[in-house]
């Protein structure tokens, strides 16, 4: 066997294809680049692409197929948390490696999974900090609007706890959930407007997912809610989503990520150029989960090079501590909890669909698997290096959760 097989587990059809197809292309791009450099340890990489079709049980089936049948060394994949939850048992059972590149709700650390997207403390909390600052507009009143599923629910739970810890009154927080693909935002946008005209500076924290965003922003624009009145900071809207929108009415609304295409950095410039050459599309945008995929990929390459084998156990043990450059000029590091360090950036939407960084954390923020703001998780810690445990309880000093 003279190639190393790399599994790509992203939906190419169904509702999630809209986001995930790009990540499949990214992995293929990275593999291509790596092979140009001669592969790893003298072996070429070979992608095995499957389409789990936005169907969660199918994710599990395909993961099993990749690992058991195709014998891939590593899998890059998943977007939604449920897809990750669905494949988790498979990765554990067959002891393989998954790189998960999307911001998520946290509350998880598994030996076989490496989380290169943001944990809530790497996105949600800094974004809120920014809004509460002078520069962010000194926001006193909050709308937490999200799609009704686990990631927004959890993120909002954490944010609520966080805001309250900062002295925000219950009555100054409005929480609103909508179904997937919600298209009629008239009522909600007008409610937000009402909520925001109570005399206190108000902002919207949006965990609205994918498809629902375009109609949401369109309605926002048409109802004339300007960023100067009620800024919206989104955690799931990036360059890719904005490409489907006329952003002129949205100028000034915000997004919090760990990467923006507009970041001025040589590594980023090169990456964008190569990517656009690879996809033969000079307008093809880049986004945060892509960057997370890139970082994850490079970390895996380094780990394999370091241990000289693709053997899962060895690579898993080698990964913590591995560093790979991120595209915003820093060096991200894989932590013992299988999350990575990332800068947190807040960007404002520009008229051309790009985002302008208006604020960023001083250094890189380490990802926290277990939030400090929820009672069930504040005592938990993940450490696969010394503790060899994903949910070590610092109070009971036992691996295996909080107990009660």
């Amino acid at each position, binding site marked *: 066997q003279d190639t190393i097989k790399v599994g790509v587990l992203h939906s190419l059809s169904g509702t999630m294809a809209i986001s995930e197809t790009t990540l499949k292309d990214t992995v293929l791009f990275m593999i291509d680049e790596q092979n140009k450099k001669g592969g790893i340890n003298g072996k070429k990489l070979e992608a095995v692409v*499957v389409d789990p079709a936005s169907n969660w049980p*199918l994710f599990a089936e395909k993961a099993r197929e990749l690992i058991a049948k195709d014998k891939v060394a590593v899998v890059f994949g998943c977007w939604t948390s449920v897809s990750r939850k669905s494949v988790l*048992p498979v990765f554990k059972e067959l002891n393989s490696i998954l790189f998960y590149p999307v911001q998520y709700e946290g509350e998880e650390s598994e030996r076989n999974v490496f989380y290169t997207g943001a944990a809530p403390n790497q996105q949600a909390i800094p974004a809120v900090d920014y809004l509460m600052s002078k520069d962010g507009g000194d926001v006193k009143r909050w709308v937490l609007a999200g799609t009704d599923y686990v990631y927004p629910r959890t993120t909002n739970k954490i944010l609520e706890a966080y805001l309250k810890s900062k002295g925000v009154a219950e009555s100054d927080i409005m929480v609103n959930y909508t179904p997937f693909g919600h298209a009629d935002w008239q009522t909600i946008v007008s409610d937000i407007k009402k909520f925001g005209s109570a005399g206190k500076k108000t902002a919207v924290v949006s965990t609205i997912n994918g498809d629902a965003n375009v109609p949401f922003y369109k309605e926002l624009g048409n109802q004339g809610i300007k960023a100067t009145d009620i800024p919206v900071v989104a955690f799931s809207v990036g360059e890719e989503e904005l490409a489907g929108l006329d952003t002129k009415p949205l100028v000034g609304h915000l997004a919090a990520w760990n990467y923006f295409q507009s970041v001025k950095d040589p590594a980023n410039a090169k990456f964008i150029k190569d990517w656009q050459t690879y996809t033969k599309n000079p307008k093809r945008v880049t986004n945060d989960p892509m960057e997370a995929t890139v970082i994850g990929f490079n970390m895996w390459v380094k780990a394999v090079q370091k241990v000289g084998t693709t053997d899962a156990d060895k690579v898993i043990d080698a990964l913590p501590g591995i560093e790979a450059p991120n595209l915003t000029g820093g060096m991200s590091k894989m932590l013992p909890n299988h999350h990575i360090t990332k800068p947190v950036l807040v960007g404002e939407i520009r008229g051309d669909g790009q985002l302008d960084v208006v604020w960023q954390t001083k250094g890189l923020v380490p990802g926290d698997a277990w939030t400090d703001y929820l009672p069930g998780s504040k005592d938990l810690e993940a450490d696969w290096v010394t503790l060899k445990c994903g949910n070590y309880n610092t109070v009971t000093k036992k691996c295996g959760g909080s107990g009660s």
Partner: protein
Amino acid sequence: MQAHPLIRMLDRGSTIFLVLLGAFAIAIPVLNLLVPATSSLHVSTYLVALLGKYICYGLLALSIDLIWGYVGILSLGHGAFFALGGYAMGMYLMRQIGTRGVYADPILPDFMVFLNWKELPFFWYGFQNFGYAMFMVLFVPGLLAFVFGWFAFRSRVTGVYLSIITQALTYALLLGFFRNNFGFGGNNGLTDFKDILGFNVQADGTRNALLVISCLMLAICFLICRAIVTSKFGKVLVAIRDAEARTRFMGYRVESYKLFVFTVSACMAGVAGALYVPQVGIINPSEFAPGNSIEAVIWVAVGGRGTLIGAVLGAFVVNYTKTFFTTGLLAPYWLFVLGGLFIGTTLFLPRGIVGTWTHWRAGVKEKSEARRSAEAEDGAIPTTGSPSTQPGAAE
């Protein structure tokens, strides 16, 4: 002229089907567990899990064929019963996790802990008991089907109206189960199962056992379906399908008939769901998605409506196509293949695979009989064959 019920039930096709199913249920575990992995005859655990899943789909398809093929009730929401059965099993499996969850809470499943639930909601009580959970697997889908059917059939909701409200039903459940507040884990659903009846769900032995049990349940349900459709009851069902009002004027209480099969069918779908969950390792609200139910109906259509065996076969064919084409180079184009399969089936196999086969067989027989009777010169028109214009069953 009336054959013994057992003989009616077990015509040649059914016997072949059951024998094949039995052979399958024996061969797969043997080839997986006893044949060494190096042998070309070895069946991988991956395949065992996959086939187990197909069997569950086959059972779901069977339950749909019973009501669609024979009574003309087109349920576009049968996935709901499947998912409810699945959730009942999932709840049992969740409770089996015990302190092995990430938060190690002995009572509360993980998703409740991290959303700050303080105690187990009442509807989760009892699910740690396997017997109770299995009862709920039948009871919940059955009860929902019964209540829903009781209203709908008494109100004489038929045809597309019924189809669409079944769709509304499953869609409403989808939205409800999505909600985290509902207490079923929201979008992520129930997952990360450990044991079933003390056996590790991921162990090869358990997988094979589940496959065998699935085959067994499929066989039992198949026999139940056959018993129903070959009895006089089955004839009443077909009568209802073709001329509901006429059946009423003949004194049959149509709604009772429909309610009975609808409920039986829902229970079967629930069983299918319950067997499916430990084999795929997750149950979440997307199983309620209307598209899933439509797809299950399509399996039946592909295999041949009103043939029972066809339903199972259709589920296998469609899902195997899906498995096969979602990997590798063709992955971005597999929808073309699947779409093409559906279009092609309607155009070239209008009665589905099994339906077209039996029709063709009957045609051959009819022709030879026609020839024979023409030779015998009685001029009478032969005795088999169906009207050339099919009445539009169920609208």
